[in-house]
């Protein structure tokens, strides 16, 4: 028995060392990649913009400038440095169709986009990981039923399924979030299940089981933390597509509603004005693109950083 405990102790120790070194290695690899660094810098900037939105935004995003002298709706950008008369209020990205400052709305939009990305994928990861872990751990018919159900969800193009779900739940940002979370659940369920299937046969798990650990402890303390790296990579990439999908839903009028300063909604409202006021379409689109790009770059970087094989080939 003592030998057994000793073995497990040393096993645990090597595992701790291994996981630490994996994290350190990943971080080191991550900082070696140009793309990942660009992604991290962009993301950091976005987070700072979101946190300091009230300081950075020159105006309230909801307030309108109707009745102010010389103000017209969808006014073109007015920048004093570029020759806009000083008598006019400065609106560096112009005004929208409701006489609101586009720049301020764009800044506050950062908060909503990041919120959408993190909540939807947060929910999807928790629910998906739980389903996948239980399914993979139980095996047999339960696993079969759960995974076939996940397959059916995956058989639909995710964006169409999200539209379906919103039609059932009703329009609005919260329902759009839920819809995107639901369509992302199978992705994480599959991922975690695959990890659990391979991990549950490993020796350190058998050893812990032999020591009398409960199923829950085995699953959530022993097995699941080992599936974390792949989960983090997939989650980062999924946040990118979740932000893109949420914006598309809002663009179609199914997601965030007026007067919320959400980029997709802002774009959708002014889509018919693209020929007369292109700035109102241009800026929100660029904002969406930069945000999505930052998560994509970081996700790709993380994946490469965690894959020692890829790390080596990239140096070769």
């Amino acid at each position, binding site marked *: 028995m003592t030998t057994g405990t000793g073995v497990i102790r040393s096993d645990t120790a090597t595992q701790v060392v291994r996981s630490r070194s994996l994290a350190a290695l990943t971080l080191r690899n991550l900082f070696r990649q140009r*793309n990942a660094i660009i992604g991290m810098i962009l993301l950091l900037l976005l987070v700072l913009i979101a946190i300091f939105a009230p300081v950075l935004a020159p105006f309230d995003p909801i307030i309108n400038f109707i009745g102010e002298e010389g103000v017209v709706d969808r006014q073109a950008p007015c920048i004093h440095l570029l020759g806009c008369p000083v008598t006019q209020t400065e609106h560096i990205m112009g005004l929208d169709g409701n006489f609101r400052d586009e720049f301020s709305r764009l800044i506050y939009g950062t908060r909503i986009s990041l919120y959408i990305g993190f909540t939807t994928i947060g929910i999807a990861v928790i629910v998906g990981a739980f389903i996948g872990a239980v399914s993979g751990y139980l095996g047999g018919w339960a696993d079969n039923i759960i995974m076939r159900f996940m397959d*059916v969800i995956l*058989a*639909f*193009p*995710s*964006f*169409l399924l999200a*539209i*379906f779900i919103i*039609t*059932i739940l*009703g329009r609005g940002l919260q329902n759009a979030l839920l819809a995107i979370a639901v369509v992302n659940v199978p992705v994480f369920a599959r991922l975690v299940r695959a990890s659990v299937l391979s991990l549950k046969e490993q020796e350190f798990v058998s050893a812990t089981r032999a020591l009398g650990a409960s199923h829950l402890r085995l699953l959530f303390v022993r097995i699941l933390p080992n599936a974390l790296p792949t989960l983090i990579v997939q989650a980062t990439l999924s946040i*990118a597509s979740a932000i*893109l999908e949420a*914006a*598309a839903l809002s*663009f*179609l009028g199914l997601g965030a509603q007026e007067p919320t300063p959400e980029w*997709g909604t802002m*774009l959708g409202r002014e*889509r018919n004005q*693209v*020929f007369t006021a*292109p700035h109102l*379409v*241009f800026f*929100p*689109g660029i904002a*969406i*693109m*930069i945000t*999505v*790009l930052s998560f*994509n*770059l970081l996700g*790709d970087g993380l994946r490469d950083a965690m894959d020692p094989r890829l790390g080596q*080939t990239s140096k*070769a």
Partner: protein
Amino acid sequence: MSQYIIRRILLAIPVVLGIMVVTFIIARVIPGDPCRSALAEHATEAACAAFAERFGLDKPILVQLGIYMGDVFTGDFGNSIRFRIPVSQLLIERLPVTLELGTAAMIIAVLIGVPAGVISAVRRNSSVDVATMIGANVGVSMPVYWLGLMLAFVFAILLKDTPFWLPPSGRLTAGVLPTPFYQAWGLHLVSGTLLYTIFDFISNFALFNAIITFQWKVLGDAIVHLILPAVALSTIPLSIIARITRSSMLDVLGREYVRAARAKGVLESKVILKHALRNALLPVVTVIGLQTGTLFAGAVLTESIFGFSGVGRALFDAITGRDYYVIQAFTIVIAIGYVFINAVVDISYAFIDPRIKLR
């Protein structure tokens, strides 16, 4: 081989059946009254009762499902509650529009994406590689509808009065009326027959119809209208194909048989195209298949921006207008398309890589 193909197709049947049932259930779960949605202010109680009876909505849900499945197998998808025409007629009109748009987008994506990926891999870390990968990263991060609107702005407004002008919306210029090929060929078909339906369906492929009837003016007009939406729709698959081709090629180019081929003195172009590319194609084909499925989702957005009345737009209108039969039929068609493409991808593996043993 043929045995494998048959088995692969048989395997798809339960998936399609499952999708039919799920779609039927989803369409029924969507809240809101189809009667109210279709008749608006005329939706009195009596009118709604007659409406429910006419569309079979008063029967138990399982009976409705049974009737529905039976009808679908005989090609009867029911009547659109909103447009008041058979759903099959709507499909005949709309499906070719989306298929043409999707095919054009996919052709652009493959024709540019695969060579771009190959060049990136061969000239690794060169400026071409860096530019391609920046382009690919930006491409997957771009909202399709935004790109569509921006393209429309640039080509329809900024480039107005230049030879590069392109129309911002529609499938054909107003007044350009294509003659269906069966009329151009002087075939006399009776409306409502199966042959007429098939011919009608084929003639709705504007480009194809114009080519086989030599209507060059119509063809030119259709192509000009197709460029912007197809380019917008192609960006995401294009970026993904370029990336996967690059990484797959890099993997293969490092293999020993490639080195051996080079050592033997095989021409570099032959090494790349014959030895490397063919072996690198497997993941590329998988991604092409997967992306074809997601094109349908992109079609909802692209069609709504460019005023294309295709399947995507129709499905979106049907969902928001609770047009049950249209939702069911169109989703089934999309899902069958999805399943079919997956089967084609699986089967194509065997042709690309003979080592894959077909079990």
